């Protein structure tokens, strides 16, 4: 296969993966913050979060596969999951490998959810907050494909993803503060005025 077809396929599937994973993050943050997506019951939001993450894996696999097959740049199979082992752009490819490792941990534990302890699942799932920024960094560092950082519409798309997740995180923190469960003493104080009405 023509090297530049492979290369562009890798770029394209890379961007699609990033967008899909961004949506997965947004849905995950929504569920964790007990929010809703208008028109969707909560169990659908959870189902979407799961299905889209599986879809993202497919695109990610093609993204990695086409990059490995492409002879123009030298990226070994090992370096797709062993960080910083690549001779081509070791830093940015390495970050991609870190993201792959984190994603494997997330997916495996989620497939085993219910069979492993809730605490273990939850602690590993927090790694999502590491996975996604690493994927973003990998994208920004390698985006242009011909050396140099991402630019043009790729850059804008990436910025949009960052803004979306940033806004979701702000919402999440705010919702958490408001709904924080508090001690019985605090609830008593708060409900004294409520009960009076």
């Amino acid at each position, binding site marked *: 296969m023509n090297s530049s077809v492979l290369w562009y396929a890798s770029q394209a599937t890379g961007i699609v993966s990033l967008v899909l994973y961004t949506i997965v993050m947004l849905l995950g943050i929504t569920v964790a913050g007990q929010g809703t997506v208008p028109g969707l019951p909560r169990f659908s939001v959870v189902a979407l979060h799961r299905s889209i993450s599986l879809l993202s894996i497919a695109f990610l696999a093609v993204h990695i596969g086409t990059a490995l097959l492409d002879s123009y740049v030298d990226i070994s199979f090992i370096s797709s999951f062993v960080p910083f082992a690549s001779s081509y752009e070791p830093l940015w490819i390495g970050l991609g490998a870190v993201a792959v490792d984190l994603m494997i941990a997330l997916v495996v534990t989620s497939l085993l959810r219910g069979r492993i302890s809730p605490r273990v699942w939850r602690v590993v799932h927090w790694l999502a907050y590491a996975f996604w920024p690493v994927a973003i960094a990998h994208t920004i560092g390698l985006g242009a494909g011909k050396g140099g950082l991402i630019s043009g519409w790729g850059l804008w798309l990436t910025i949009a993803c960052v803004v979306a997740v940033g806004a979701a995180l702000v919402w999440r923190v705010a919702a958490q503060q408001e709904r*924080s469960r*508090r*001690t*019985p003493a605090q609830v*008593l104080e*708060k*409900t004294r005025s409520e009960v009076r009405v």
Partner: protein
Amino acid sequence: MTAIDNGIREAAVQQQTQVERTEDNGVLPSRPLGLADHRVYYGALPTPDQLPLGELAAKLGHAGVRGRGGAGFPLYRKLVSVSGAARARRVAPTIVANGCEGEPASHKDKHLLWLAPHLVLDGMVLLGRELRATRAVLAIEAGAPHGKGDLVRRVREAVAERDVRQDGVRVEVVEVPGRFIAGESAALVSTLDGGPGLPTYREDSVRERGVGGTPTLIQNVETVAQVALIARYGADWFRDYGTAAEPGPQLFTVYAGRNRPRVVHAAAGAPLWPLIADAEPIDAVLIGGYHGSWITAPMARHARLSEADLDVPLGAGLIAALPAERCGLAETAHIVRYLALESAGQCGPCLNGLPRIAAALELLADPHHASQRNGLLEDLERWCGMVEGRGLCHHPDGSVRLVRSALIVFRTEIAAHRAGLCTGGDRRPLLPAPAPAREYAAH
């Protein structure tokens, strides 16, 4: 040993220079006993030869011992359950004697541990032998006060006096931070396992999987002391006290018009009236503890002290007479506020419901608010229904029991409050509501 009748005896009634066993004494001595005096007073602890394996359980079954506090579960069945689980899993069980006495108004356990700690230790040794336990823990409240003495030190001294080789069981003393639910089984297991001391979700009961995952027998220290007495004097001696359904000598903490509460020795079926006569005129009596029930004054005057007669559990053995000049609603509001603050705060219904119930009771207890606010009783009943049975422990259930009994027994007070009046002039709280020794983390 002659049978002692079902009369009521003060636990610390004699002013004797020598400690003698007389019929006037209750089962407790009049002053704290060291190991040597203890052996003289009660007799020697039966040796394993004198009480072979299985015989203790049989005696306890025949005696019909039930646990004090909790659900009054027959001790014999718990023993069978724990030893069965231990055998099945080939794991040695653990014994826990619960002397935490999280009930602030109750003093009987501290009183027992102060006067006759060796009775409790004997019981632990006997149960430990019977179950072949490798660990025996005596849990007491850290910094527990007792009169002028340091109870924790007294207990540790008693443990140090024991001959572990002769006993065959080594007792560990563990100090537990004093909270109302600290003695709840799952919470206690959590503390003993080094956790935060809160109830946890369990698939198995503590009897199957408790401290360190071992089958665990947890009993109130008074029950453990009863074991030590039955081993010496027999099941028939035990059954000579009380009624057929509620046998055995029991300790109660009585609040009846004096400045300080007193611990009395009595048994089921004894008339309740003489215990609280000093407090007359009375409004109502609280039976059991803060998870107990109020009973009316007429019932208190005529009923016998038994679950069958009173139709309420005797629980932790609290008997608190509310003098007529006090306000039963104010007292209940004060207690329920304490109960709300003592919630572990883990379970949504309890965390949200108990404070609202407490706040509503505060309003109901104030004639000014009670007369203005509509729907207070409906809200109370709604919230009571909402917290019952929904949580990791029975704290909300017990609290609801107290509230519901108050709404019935203080019916006339409620009517008066809603009309803007209070029949009781003295709104001071009668019963204690201590601040927590340590805080639970917010969830």
